[in-house]
């Protein structure tokens, strides 16, 4: 066990833990934001640079500060390390700069985008972004394309976090999409427009921190803050069937995995409860789901703007789950 201090809060964690995970153990607002790191995807992180923190003291043995800001998602803690996140002016300024860079090619189409209201880039720019843009050049633009018959790719919105590539690598048998070209020209694409068809490909929608990958069955149907997220389960042969259904009245508009406070899919019995494409795209009848009840929503979220209650508990099968 090693001792680490983050924003003046001391915590003992196991050796080999990253700074980000140590901060998440403390919780609250000492947790740095992360756009690319995803705890259940191996090898993710280190791309987006939003989780940069200042290390004021390296360790007890060598207490010199690290000269540059470090990526907290891939830097391991050392005994006696002192980390500054919220308390560091440098971190704040740098995060603002990183946000500005992420927004360089990002279109300002939140009113159109289906991710608005649950978008991590929206939250990040709300906290760290500037009021206007200093980018005068033309943004790079792409036409939205269908990858697979259920997923829409808006390359304009992509921030190249590589999460979806990791999903394809680790959850599906054959990866058919990836990042083509390099540097400024890099883009997510499928090999010769080949469709993504796999039982778990829909999870790349859930891991996408922005609205680059969206659900075609939910495209422009409604806004997330008009829907009521309900915890629901279902018996499924391919996956745990542990999901959130987004309801409007008595109808299910879309199905997603259950996401925790960091936007990551919750764990069930030690494993990440990824849901399969059958649950996500094909089962939209409330009778096929066992609806447990409303999901807890952070009151600062725009989703809680809606009047949030059980839509007539007598009509849905809430009672079944109580038995």
């Amino acid at each position, binding site marked *: 066990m090693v001792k680490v201090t983050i924003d003046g809060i001391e915590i003992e964690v196991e050796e080999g833990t990253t700074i980000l995970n140590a901060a998440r153990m403390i919780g609250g607002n000492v947790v740095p934001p992360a756009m690319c790191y995803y705890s259940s995807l191996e090898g993710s992180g280190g791309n987006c640079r939003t989780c940069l923190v200042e290390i004021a003291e390296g360790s007890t043995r060598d207490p010199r500060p690290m000269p540059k800001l470090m990526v907290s998602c891939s830097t391991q803690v050392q005994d006696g390390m002192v980390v500054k996140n919220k308390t560091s002016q440098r971190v704040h300024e740098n995060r603002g700069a990183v946000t500005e860079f992420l927004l360089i090619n990002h279109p300002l*189409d939140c*009113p159109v985008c289906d991710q*608005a209201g649950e978008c991590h880039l929206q939250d990040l720019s709300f906290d760290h972004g500037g009021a206007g843009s200093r980018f005068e050049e033309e943004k790079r633009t792409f036409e939205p394309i269908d990858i697979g018959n259920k997923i829409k790719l808006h390359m304009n919105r992509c921030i190249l976090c590589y999460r979806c590539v990791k999903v394809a690598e680790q959850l599906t048998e054959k990866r058919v999409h990836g990042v083509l070209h390099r540097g400024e020209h890099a883009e997510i694409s499928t090999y010769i427009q080949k469709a993504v068809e796999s039982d778990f490909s829909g999870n790349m929608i859930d891991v996408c921190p922005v609205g680059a990958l969206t659900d075609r069955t939910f495209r422009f149907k409604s806004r997330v*803050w*008009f829907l009521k997220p309900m915890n629901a389960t279902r018996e499924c042969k391919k996956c745990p069937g542990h999901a959130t259904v987004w309801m409007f009245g008595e109808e299910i508009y879309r199905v997603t995995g259950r996401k925790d406070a960091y936007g990551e899919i919750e764990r069930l019995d030690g494993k990440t409860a990824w849901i399969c494409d059958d649950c996500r795209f094909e089962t939209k009848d409330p009778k096929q789901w066992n609806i447990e009840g409303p999901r807890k929503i952070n009151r600062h979220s725009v989703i809680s*703007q809606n009047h949030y209650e059980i839509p007539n508990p007598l009509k849905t099968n809430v009672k079944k789950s109580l038995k």
Partner: protein
Amino acid sequence: MESLTNRKKVVSDKQMTFLESLYLPVVLAGMAMTFRHMFNKSATIRYPEQQRAFAPVYRGMHVLKRDEQGRENCTACGLCAVACPAEAITMVAGERLPGEEHLYREEKYAVTYEINMIRCIFCGLCEEACPKEAVFLTDRIVPTSFDREDFVYGKNRLVESIDNRIDITKRQHTGKRGKK
């Protein structure tokens, strides 16, 4: 005991004098006051022949604006509906098809957009919330009707027609929005 405030009025049963009991001087004084008002400037106007000028930011019937090229500004983002304290606004979004670029400005548009004018309290929060400068309140008054259904205004009555634009430049350049 002495009163702590001087708001109390002491009642007296004083007898009227002869002149007072005739009431005539008081009646004449009252009539003089009445007739004097006949020559004063009238406080009312003769509506509907005459109409008062509206304040530049008067909040009346809504309009859904089009841009210079005649394309609808609204993208059905739903911010007006979530801002509306009276829950008067509903909408259904749709995807713009290829070939409809001259009708709608963005790839998403409102297929139906309804404002219930009975629910609406004309607070102007929808106008405030709109990120696309699509919905504005105007100085037009919502006409009366005998049917409740008539007050649910759809896109046919809210979207301005291309030939007959509704001028809202005054609202945009006064008050909080300032001069542009």
